[in-house]
Each structure stands twice: as C-alpha cells, then as structure tokens.
C-alpha cells in the first residue's frame, strides 16, 4: 500500500520550511508534496517563503543571456497560426454534459417532434412542404427553444434561388454553440465555409467546416464571449485555411 494513500502527519513549521525549497523547484517526493500542501495553512512563514521562491524563479528565467531569435522564427510562427482552423482547437474543452445535451436537442429537432416559437411579428404561413422541422417564413428567423437553457436561430440564405439554410443553437450564457447547415452549394477546390459572429463592429470567426454531397454539414464551436452577446451570424465561402476577415461570398446570414 503506497504511503501516498494515507494522510501524512502535519509537520511543524520548522520541518515544513526545510521542504519548501525542494517543493518550489519540483524536487519533492509525492509524500513530501502532500506534507507541504497539508502544512501550508498552518505555517504562514512557509507560504511566504514559497511565494519568494516563485518570484525568484521568475527572475532566474529572466536572468539568462538574451539572444535574438532568428528573424524567420516570427514568420514561421505566424504561418503556423494562419494555418490553424480558428476556434476548433478548443473543441476538446467542450463540457461533456453540454455535448450530450446538444446532440439530444439536434436529434429532437430532426425527429420533428419539437416545439417552435416564432420570434417575428409577421403572421404565420403554411408549413414548408419539405417538412423541415424549422420553418422559414420570408426572411424571418425563428428562435427554437427546448427549455430556458437552449436557444436557436435559423439563418436564411443570402442568395436568391438557393436552398441554403443553417440552424445555430446554443445554451443560454454559453460560449459553445452548434451549427447545422443544409442545402449548401458544393465547395470549389481549395475552399471552405466559415462561420462569423458579429459583436459591434467586429466579426469573429467561429470556425470552418465542409459539407457533404447533399450540402449538409455541422460545426461545434467555442467563442470567447457568450453567444447571447453577439448580434449577427453569417457563413461565407473562404480559402481552405480560413480567413481573418469575412469575404464577399455570403451563403447565409441572420440576426441572433
């Protein structure tokens, strides 16, 4: 039975202080780490010394000879980030519970058993004969809610005579959203679709995605502010590595 599985006796302050240098520099054994962490609350001097060691380590890192990096390093670094799909790197941070909830709501929507509440003041029209569970009437966007916690917006096509449509859904106050698109045009070689959210004058990229042969695709995205705070959403066609600003080829657009 490992000693780390048993609570370590709390050390007196003097003994604790002897362990602080090793602890601060990552040299303490697991047993010693536990002893330090248990004892810090009872020995203010140990806490103060640990803070000193942290600041001293900052100075040690600054005290190395300063050498100019190769000029090409900056260009390589900028090329590397430009090649990264924006926001997708944060997908692993999506909370599992939310991911499950999002999948469940999508399943409910497309099984056509869901409630729809209309956000526009225009009178309702006959349902779309394609039986799409999200109804579009003119250029109005509909907000679909499953509960107090999930919001939906339909993004209609920005071009005439196309079937492109998108549904954006997110949890209230969340920075994580789910996009589902249908009827999108096929992408040219070297192109991708990119989702943009507008806040004030800024248009933030929320990620890029592809569509299949039916023009359907999906994107789980994570932005830096609650989606509720954004005002508009649009999807544009961009170069395959993504773009820093939305281009002119807008596929769908709608107010959030």
């Amino acid at each position, binding site marked *: 039975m490992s000693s780390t599985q048993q609570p370590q006796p709390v050390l007196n302050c003097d003994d604790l202080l002897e362990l602080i240098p090793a602890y601060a520099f990552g040299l303490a054994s697991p047993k010693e780490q536990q002893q330090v962490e248990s004892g810090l609350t009872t020995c203010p001097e140990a806490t103060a010394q640990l803070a*000193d060691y942290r600041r001293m380590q900052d*100075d040690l890192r*600054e*005290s190395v*000879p*300063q050498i*100019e*990096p190769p000029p090409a*390093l900056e260009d390589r670094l900028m090329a590397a980030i430009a090649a990264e799909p924006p926001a997708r790197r944060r997908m692993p941070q999506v909370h599992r519970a939310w991911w499950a909830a999002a999948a469940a709501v999508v399943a409910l929507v497309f099984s056509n058993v869901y409630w729809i509440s209309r956000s526009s003041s225009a009178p309702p029209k006959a349902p779309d004969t394609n039986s799409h569970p999200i109804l579009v009437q003119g250029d109005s966007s509909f907000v679909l809610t499953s509960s107090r916690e999930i919001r939906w917006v339909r993004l209609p096509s920005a071009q005439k005579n196309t079937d492109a449509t998108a549904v954006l859904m997110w949890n209230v106050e969340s920075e994580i959203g789910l996009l589902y698109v249908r009827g999108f045009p096929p992408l040219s070689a070297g192109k991708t679709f990119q989702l943009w959210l507008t806040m004030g004058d800024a248009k933030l990229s929320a990620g890029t995605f592809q569509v299949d042969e039916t023009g359907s695709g999906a994107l789980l995205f994570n932005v830096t502010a609650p989606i509720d705070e954004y005002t508009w959403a649009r999807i544009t066609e961009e170069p395959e590595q993504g773009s820093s600003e939305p281009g002119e080829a807008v596929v769908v657009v709608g107010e959030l």
Partner: protein
Amino acid sequence: MTVQADDIDLMKRIHRHDQQAFRLLYQQYGKAAYSLAYRVLQNTAQAEEVTQDAFMKVWQQQTRWDPDKGQLRNWLLTITHFTAIDRLRRERRQPNLHPESIEDMEEMLSSRSDSLWQDDTVLRMLIQQLPAEQVALIDLAFFRGMSHSEIAAETRLPLGTVKTRLRSGLQRLRELWVETTKLPTLQS
C-alpha cells in the same frame, strides 16, 4: 495604460484570434522566450522549435493567463521553461556537456559563467556569491529539470549530499535575493 492593462487587452484580442495581436505578443516576448529555451537546450534548432511550441500553446489556448496570478511575461516564460524541459527530457541528453564529476561541472560553470547569466542582473550577482558546487546543482535542477536522483547520477554524488547541498544553496540564494530585492534602488 499600465503594462498589465496593455497585456490584458492584448490577450483578449488574442483570445478572439486576432493575428496582429499575437504578432505583437511575439515581438514583445519572443526574445526572452527564445533566450530561455536556448539556455535550457543549448541548441538553436531546438530552441526555435520550443519557442514556437510555447507560443502555439498560447494561441491554441491550451492554458490561459490569469492576470491575478502574475504578469504575462512571467507566465509566458514559465510555459517556455516547462516546454523546454519536456523537450530536453525527450532528447535524453545534456546540452554540450558530459561532466565526469561535480568538479568538472563546477569548472564548466565557472568558465562559462559569462554565457550562462545575463550581465547586470541581480541573479547573476547573487549566484556568484554561492559556492560553485551549489550553483552547479541549482543549474541542473532548474535549467535541466533534473530530479535529485538524476543529479546524483550525473554528478556521482551521494543522493543525500545532493539533497543537502541543493536545499542549502536554494535557501541561501533566497535569503540573498530577498535582501537584495527589498533595497529601493535595486527595485527601480
């Protein structure tokens, strides 16, 4: 705006994937990061790769800076330091030196002292006040990321001796550092 406020604003922009802001971050701190990476690895190609890796971690937001816990510069250098140590361990080699004994290590450090510490830094002055044997061990622990056992194996010193000397050296260095950093003239 204070430096801290500027850095907070810069990081907010980077979190929104503002590439120009990211370039500014590199221009401000890239040299310090590269210098630290080189100090650990003693290899320019690896130092470049580690510097790029560290900045990519910031861009990819694998970890986020908390302004309440310290300055951006220190946070970035800590990321760089740990990334460099990880790389060094993977390479499984000690940069440019294979000392036969602690005496060789001490001699190497004293002969290369000009290249190991930046001129006119407080730490360089303080380090020079420590016994060479303690400086050698601090270097192996902090800049090579070695454990007590690894240091003992590297220097062929008994494990207990390594632990005692390292603890004494760090305690003395801290005392000197605290005394020095409390002096008003040296804090400006």
